[in-house]
């Protein structure tokens, strides 16, 4: 089985390197096909591994010794167990679809080859992240996906906004990564190893305070990568990148790495329910917070980004409350329908000549029926309507919150579910139905190429049926993860399901009803709350005023005063001193023997003084 592991891991790397060879040359369809094929091979290997792990046991390989210095010994090891194999399959599946989709999406782009190189490199980093059997390997993958995310958000680096967004994402992630690193240090400090199995075996013996700190620090890392409040602003801005990137990185895989970390380190978090509760509360808050921002936004991709944020909040609720398999399940289903939604949005964007304002679209259903259907499926799944995937996973999370007795969390998630349904269908209605506003702008929409649509069908299929695998998923993952015990009565569960479905349905119906009749009046745009939501609760502004501007002032001060006047000046001074002393010492070389002899006597005096004061150790 090891060879499948290596194939799954290194096929994307090979693809990336080969594509990178052509990075500077003009568009070559070969790179797209080649990388897609390799990713598909990786996907097939992952599936084989999934069957193997299901039937037999986990695969653990040690590729080589990596760092061995003193007592520190870390090997480059990989593990394929129930959790990582689920992640592998999800990642490679979505990646395959996104790769194929990108061949169509990026076909007019000059840097076609470069794009595929980055994209495959991202998949490779993500595979390292999920397959590593120790925290350091995870961290390497973590940084690798961060780097690829930076490269891909700033893919159109000539656009100022794109490079700004890339830097924002990168810097925010660095802040969080510091927390993560501290967590890893703490683990190593107290346990002396970073292997998952050793850490989890001995974490029980540690002082609960230390475990709490480890949990908190690791969660800070997760917060950055999964864009949880207050480090969430980068995700919406990251939509500057190409749409396939948004689908792959900022919806399906990378942003869920935080959830994966919490699930992976579940054995730590079960020891510290207080931290878990905090994670869950923050998740619930983000779920509603992000959903509310999605309500009023007019940018097609940003709406979906906020929706991603909100769904990540749901996952964190489940993970924080100890229902790890449910978090993982929602992660998987979400990956399917959210990437589908994004890729559909990409089609719409292409059709609208990169117009993103949904108020300027409308009536696209006739022109792009397949896309509309696919996005509809994704939205229904996102809203959580039976029998689509989102229903099963999201509903379970609500059950968990209820079961845990944290009714406030449940209420928040419940409201969030309604909001989700509303904004999803607001989007669908504004884009595909209603008046053809886009005709005013002289845009003629066109459907994407057939192979692009076909590439999306697996995702659509999974978005529909993935929910039915809930039970086998549960059986499979709880071999490794801690089981979550429901203590609710069956009738309560049924009631809950009905309640959730009802609010989701009512959200959908409200949206459909409202937007079929032309939507809300312009007046609400003057409402204070509307403005508050549209400006993202003024948080970016707050950051700019409270952090960016003072920091810029500080940097400017440091540059002008410390760097210029102290660092540079001292360096200059050294150079000037040497130069001028050389200039002056040149006069010694007068060529006159008399003056040379005088200097010689000076030298003799110096030596004599030395002879007096220098005392060799006797």
């Amino acid at each position, binding site marked *: 089985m090891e060879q499948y592991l290596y194939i799954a891991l290194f096929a994307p790397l090979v693809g990336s390197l080969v594509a990178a060879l052509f990075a500077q040359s003009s568009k070559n369809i070969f790179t797209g096909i080649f990388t897609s094929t390799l990713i598909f091979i990786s996907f097939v290997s992952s599936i084989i591994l999934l069957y193997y792990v299901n039937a037999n046991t986990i695969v653990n390989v040690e590729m080589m010794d990596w760092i061995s210095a003193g007592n520190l010994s870390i090997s480059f090891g990989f593990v394929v167990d129930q959790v990582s194999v689920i992640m592998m399959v999800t990642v490679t599946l979505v990646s395959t679809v996104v790769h194929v989709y990108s061949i169509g999406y990026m076909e007019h782009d000059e840097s076609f080859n470069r794009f595929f190189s980055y994209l495959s490199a991202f998949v490779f980093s993500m595979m390292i992240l999920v397959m590593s059997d120790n925290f350091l390997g995870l961290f390497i993958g973590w940084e690798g996906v961060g780097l690829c995310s930076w490269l891909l958000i700033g893919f159109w680096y000539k656009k100022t906004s794109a490079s700004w967004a890339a830097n924002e994402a990168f810097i925010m992630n660095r802040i969080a990564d510091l927390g993560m690193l501290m967590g890893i240090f703490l683990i190593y400090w107290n346990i002396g190893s970073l292997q998952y199995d050793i850490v989890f075996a001995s974490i029980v013996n540690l002082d609960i305070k230390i475990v709490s700190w480890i949990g908190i620090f690791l969660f800070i890392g997760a917060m950055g990568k999964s864009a949880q409040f207050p480090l969430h602003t980068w995700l919406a801005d990251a939509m500057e990148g190409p749409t396939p990137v948004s689908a792959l990185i900022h919806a399906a895989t990378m942003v869920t790495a935080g959830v994966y970390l919490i699930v992976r380190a579940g054995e730590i978090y079960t020891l510290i329910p207080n931290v878990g509760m905090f994670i869950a509360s923050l998740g619930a808050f983000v779920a509603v917070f992000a959903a509310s921002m999605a309500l009023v936004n007019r940018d097609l991709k940003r709406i979906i980004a906020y929706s991603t944020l909100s769904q990540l909040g749901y996952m964190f609720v489940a993970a924080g409350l100890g229902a790890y398999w449910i978090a993982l399940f929602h992660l998987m289903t979400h990956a399917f329908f959210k990437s589908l939604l994004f890729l559909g949005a990409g089609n719409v964007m292409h059709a609208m000549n990169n117009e993103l304002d949904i108020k300027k679209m409308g009536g696209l259903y006739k022109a792009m029926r397949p896309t509309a259907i696919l996005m509809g499926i994704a939205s229904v799944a996102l809203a959580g309507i039976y029998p689509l995937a989102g229903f099963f996973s999201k509903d379970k999370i609500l059950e968990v919150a209820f079961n845990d007795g944290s009714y406030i969390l449940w209420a928040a998630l419940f409201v969030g579910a309604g909001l989700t349904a509303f904004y999803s269908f607001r989007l669908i209605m504004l884009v595909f139905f209603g008046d053809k506003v886009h005709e005013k702008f002289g845009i003629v929409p066109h459907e994407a190429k057939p192979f692009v649509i076909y590439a999306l069908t697996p995702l659509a299929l999974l978005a529909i049926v993935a929910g039915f695998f809930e039970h086998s998923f549960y059986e499979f993952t709880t071999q490794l993860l801690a089981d979550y015990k429901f203590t609710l009565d069956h009738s309560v569960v049924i009631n809950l399901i009905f309640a959730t479905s009802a609010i989701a349905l009512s959200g959908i119906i409200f949206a459909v009803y409202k937007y079929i009749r032309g939507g809300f009046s312009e007046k609400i745009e003057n409402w204070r709350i509307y403005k508050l939501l549209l400006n993202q609760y003024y948080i970016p502004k707050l950051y700019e005023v409270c952090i960016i501007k003072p920091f810029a002032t500080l940097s400017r001060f440091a540059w002008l005063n410390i760097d210029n006047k102290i660092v540079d000046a001292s360096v200059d001074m050294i150079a000037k001193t040497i130069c001028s002393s050389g200039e002056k010492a*040149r006069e010694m*070389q*007068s*060529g*006159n*023997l*008399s003056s040379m*002899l*005088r200097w010689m*006597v000076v030298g003799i005096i110096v030596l004599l003084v030395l002879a007096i004061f220098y005392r060799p150790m006797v």
Partner: protein
Amino acid sequence: MITLTHYLVLSVILFSIGLVGVMRRKNLLMLFFSTEILLNSVNIGFVAVSHYYGDLSGQLFAFFIIAVAASEIAVGLGLLVLWYKKTGSINLDSLQMMKG
């Protein structure tokens, strides 16, 4: 009673006279004379130390110094004569070809 210190102080006085000569004179011949003074002052020191410590090495060193002085003068005077033939001057200030 004359002690070693007397001799050494004398040697130092002669040495500094030699140093003054070396630095002061511009006549190259005088420079050679001054070097002789320097060497001789050192010789006095060596012989005095040899006498007061009852060790012969000092005298032998003085002996070798005399040999070195003799050969130095032979070569140095030869060069000086050559220089004089070439430039017609033994003034040190005319010797500035090495000015940097």
